[in-house]
């Protein structure tokens, strides 16, 4: 296969995005264009990319070596060259496949969801731009090129969160997402720069880095590792940079599904996996990462328990699940982390799309306590949501169970018992809050009889596809006890961090614990919310509901603080000190002139006196000089 096709995987959505954008601008300012054209152009792109991805997948599966395509020198300074290059290895093609697949389904879904929206074309333009950036991130062959995609997805995230930009809250959320991501990017860039200086001069693609990374002293590697992880923290919404993600739910639901649940947020995980050769050398950083992940998982789960907004709950659950992934990659089990990325993509996308369907159906209401009893009204949605909820809660045989269980097992086997405990506890919480959502939304009594909106097939079909995926995706990574071949570990052998052989009985015991914990969560939720009385006025409050006031604290420290500083600089320092000094110097000169101007008193005798003084001083000077 021609490796230049790698570029086309990216280029197709990019071109599509460009064309869509141009058409959209044309459409709104000159002549209206039919939405069908947009739909067609939009959906074509990810599907084509997906097909190319499949071709690469098959080729790799048949033993082809990694594909590398370097069309041109991106930058060459001081003799060091950074190429614009793409790498098609097993990891990237794996990512390409699931990104394009999930992307395609969400495109289809969005075609229904966004129908009739004013910004229809714009939406797909952004969407395809996102696809292109994400694919660039994935397919890049060097960290710098990856960073282009990395920031590109951040930009698309910004654009899509602020999609309805006339509403201040949306744009604020978008800004927040972008800025917080930028904080992460700061870390990324620092890591990048340090890496470039220690190894990059020998070549800056992954191969070269992998070869020479061991030349770097560990202390530096630690810094690089932490810096890069800060980047991942930003993108993957880990403590302390998670704050943007819940707010990012301001965007249209397909956006939340695609970007803020399935693909973009997992970029951090992908990046860590990509730099496995680095993190392998610095396990202490990995441990740190795992702890961050664990705490993020727990923290987000706790917050999610008391939220009322359906999308916010899902957002916190995303943070929580991302925490799991970081536990895995932090402990060196990259393939396990990626496995969870994979399964999570399915069920989380499904959850979001289901939520989107619900939201559409009830007329853009997001508070779960104002829904209720939707089971009858939306049977299809109900059933797929059930699958997804079970998957996320870790109930076998749904996909989430396998990946999450493997993570917990890995944690245990690495003797990280605290992490294991947190993970387990979080699993229980997850089951609890997810079923809380589920029960409240679909069961109970809907005391407000509302007109249900019609759901188009373009929304329903992707739900089914993903529901299928959420059900079976776990089977690609079956544990040893069930299957000899763990397909994921097989495919991503280089990233598996070494196989962990566990006694079958132990393994089953752990599975049992997980299932029990999950079921316990479900039971609690069932007791509390299955027959929930909607006539009670629900007033959630308290520290958990308010997300531990983290947002407010951040706002106070960073936003207010910097605004104060800004005002101080521009008003007090610039205007008050520097400019004033300059101006008073000038003013002082002029006033001095006015003072001296008194010498021009128009008195002849005074003038003559001055002359006399001059003559006299000349004489004195000469007397002194001549002796």
């Amino acid at each position, binding site marked *: 296969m021609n490796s230049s096709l790698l570029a086309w995987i990216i280029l197709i959505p990019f071109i599509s995005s460009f064309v869509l954008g141009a058409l959209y601008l044309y459409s709104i300012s000159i002549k209206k264009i039919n939405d069908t054209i947009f739909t067609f152009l939009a959906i074509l792109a990810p599907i084509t990319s997906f097909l190319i991805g499949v071709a690469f997948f098959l080729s790799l599966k048949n033993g082809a070596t990694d594909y590398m395509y370097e069309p041109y020198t991106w930058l060459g300074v001081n003799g060091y060259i950074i190429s614009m290059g793409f790498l098609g290895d097993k990891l990237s093609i794996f990512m390409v496949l699931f990104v394009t697949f999930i992307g395609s389904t969400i495109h289809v879904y969005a075609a229904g969801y966004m129908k009739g929206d004013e910004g229809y074309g714009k939406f797909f333009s952004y969407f395809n731009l996102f696809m292109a950036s994400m694919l660039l991130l994935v397919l890049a062959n060097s960290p710098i090129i990856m960073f282009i995609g990395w920031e590109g997805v951040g930009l698309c995230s910004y654009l899509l969160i602020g999609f309805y930009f006339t509403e201040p809250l949306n744009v604020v959320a978008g800004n927040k997402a972008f800025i917080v991501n930028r904080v992460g990017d700061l870390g990324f860039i620092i890591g990048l720069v340090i890496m470039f200086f220690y190894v990059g001069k020998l070549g800056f693609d992954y191969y070269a880095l992998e070869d020479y990374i061991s030349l770097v002293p560990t202390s530096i590697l630690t810094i690089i590792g932490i810096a890069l992880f800060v980047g991942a923290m930003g993108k993957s919404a880990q403590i302390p940079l998670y704050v943007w993600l819940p707010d990012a739910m301001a965007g249209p639901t397909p956006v939340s599904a695609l970007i803020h649940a399935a693909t973009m947020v997992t970029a951090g995980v992908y990046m860590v996996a990509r730099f496995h050769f680095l993190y392998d050398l610095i396990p202490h950083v990995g441990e740190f990462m795992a702890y961050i992940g664990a705490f993020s998982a727990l923290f987000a789960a706790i917050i999610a328990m008391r939220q009322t907004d359906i999308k916010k709950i899902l957002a916190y659950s995303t943070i929580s699940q991302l925490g799991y992934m970081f536990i895995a990659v932090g402990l060196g089990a990259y393939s396990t982390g990626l496995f969870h990325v994979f399964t999570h993509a399915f069920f989380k996308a499904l959850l979001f799309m289901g939520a989107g369907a619900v939201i559409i159906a009830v007329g853009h209401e997001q508070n779960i306590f104002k829904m209720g009893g939707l089971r009858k009204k939306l049977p299809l949605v109900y059933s797929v949501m059930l699958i997804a909820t079970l998957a996320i809660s870790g109930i076998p045989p749904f996909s989430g169970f396998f990946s999450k269980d493997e993570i917990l097992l890995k944690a245990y086997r690495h003797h990280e018992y605290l992490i294991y405990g947190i993970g387990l506890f979080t699993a229980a919480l997850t089951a609890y809050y997810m079923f809380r959502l589920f029960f409240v939304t679909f069961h109970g009594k809907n005391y407000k009889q509302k007109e249900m909106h019609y759901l188009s097939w373009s929304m329903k079909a992707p739900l089914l596809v993903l529901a299928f995926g959420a059900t079976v995706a776990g089977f690609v990574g079956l544990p040893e006890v069930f299957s000899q071949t763990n397909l994921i570990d097989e495919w991503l052998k280089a990233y598996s961090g070494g196989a962990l052989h566990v006694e079958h009985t132990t393994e089953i015991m752990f599975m049992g614990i997980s299932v029990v914990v999950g079921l316990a969560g479900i039971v609690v939720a069932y007791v509390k919310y299955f027959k929930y009385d909607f006539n009670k006025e629900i007033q959630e409050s308290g520290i958990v509901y308010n997300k531990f006031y983290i947002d407010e604290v951040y706002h106070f420290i960073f936003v207010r603080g910097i605004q104060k500083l800004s005002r101080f600089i521009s008003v007090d320092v610039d205007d008050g000190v520097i400019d004033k000094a300059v101006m008073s110097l000038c003013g002082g000169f002029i006033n001095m002139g006015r003072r001296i101007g008194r010498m021009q008193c128009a008195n002849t005798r005074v003038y003559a006196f001055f002359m006399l*003084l001059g*003559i*006299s001083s000349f*004489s*004195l000077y*000469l*007397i002194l000089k001549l002796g």
Partner: protein
Amino acid sequence: MIDTIFLILSLFALAGAIGMITLSNTMHSALSFLVTVFAIAGLYALLNASFLFMVQIIIYAGAIIALLLFIVMFLNIKEDKLKEPNRYNIMLVVAIILAPVDYLLFQAFLKMPHIGDFSTTLDNFGDVKMLGNELFKGWLVPFEAISVLLLVALIGSIVLARKKERE
């Protein structure tokens, strides 16, 4: 003998000068200045400048001061109006400030290289013939320039003193 005359004349000159700058009445000070002018004319005579002696008397005493007095009287100035209470203080200050100037000038002349002789002179030194000869042989340009200057002064005084400009 000569020294005595010099002493007397210079005393007169100084006294006249001091009188000129101290007397408050214009007329008095003009007359005081006249004394100085005459004393200086005497000094010229002492210095063998016989022609200058005459010129000094004619131009200064005869022309300039006469003109001055004429104008003072013509304008009929009331001197009482001018109050100059602190003129002596100013004079004192000016005198102090002038000290270095005078010292320098004096010193300069004292250090002057000895190239001349003050005592011996020609018989006809300073008389009209010698002066005229020298004037037209060696000083033609300044002489002509002076004539231009006088012309300018003539026009100038006409212009300035003319009563009305243009009808």
